[in-house]
């Protein structure tokens, strides 16, 4: 068993059509949330609303990370409202679309949060002489730099 949820499906439709269903808000409400505030642009902070049969609606924050039409779309979600999404407090959802037999292979991977506070971890990276530790922390650093430049681009 891997450390993530991985699911995929073959769809008899072109990649561009599937991309629209995965990323356009008016399409996403047809298969996912009841209401959605989503823009397919890196750094967008939105939300999804789920209305249960009974009881209060549930709002889930969503933070868009990567938008690479028409192949890859990633976002973080389920972080506490009003708190920036990070690997420590949210899960990562990654959609990849690949042409397959005249149609599309749509794959989704959801990876759990690492539960580790980034700043403390960042400090430890400099005390950590382990190669594995370094590559792991450098990957995190790269993600942080990317999200910062995405913020700056807004």
């Amino acid at each position, binding site marked *: *068993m*891997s*450390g*993530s*949820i991985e*699911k*995929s*499906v*073959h*769809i*008899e*439709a*072109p990649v561009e*059509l*599937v991309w629209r*269903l*995965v990323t356009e808000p008016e*399409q996403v409400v*047809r*298969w*996912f949330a009841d209401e959605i505030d989503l823009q397919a642009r890196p750094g967008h902070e939105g939300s999804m609303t789920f209305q249960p049969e009974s009881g209060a609606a549930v709002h889930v924050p969503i933070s868009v990370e990567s938008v690479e039409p028409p192949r890859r779309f990633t976002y973080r979600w*389920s972080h506490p409202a009003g708190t920036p999404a990070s690997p420590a407090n949210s*899960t990562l959802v990654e959609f990849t679309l690949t042409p397959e037999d005249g149609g*599309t292979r*749509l794959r*989704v991977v*959801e*990876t*759990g*949060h*690492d*539960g*580790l506070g980034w700043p403390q*971890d960042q400090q*430890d990276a400099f005390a*950590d002489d*382990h190669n*594995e*530790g370094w590559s*792991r922390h450098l990957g995190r650093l790269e993600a942080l730099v990317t999200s910062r430049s995405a913020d700056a681009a807004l």
Partner: protein
Amino acid sequence: MPMDDEQLWAAVAEPGRRRVLDALVALGEATPTALAREVPFTRQAVSKHLAVLLEAGVVSQRRDGREVRYTVHPDRLEAAARAMAAAAARWDARLQAIKRLAEDEHRSQRP
């Protein structure tokens, strides 16, 4: 921080932590030092993963002289696996819904 089962899977479903958990299941009871020999992480990194698992209630710890030993909580691990299976089933249902919508639309666009 109390965690409901809905979120419990997210503490387990992180590839690095999954390796620590798998090693702990294999060893039965272990210290962070013993676990660090089984996974490609430092003892410090293993300790941090254990802290997250402890908070989620998936493992418990006991002091043994100068050492702290960890064991897996089978009930909570089972609850985490169930929650993960439920989350996976929801993705399956969503992918099937996308497939239906995409294929219907594609067919209707053809002459």
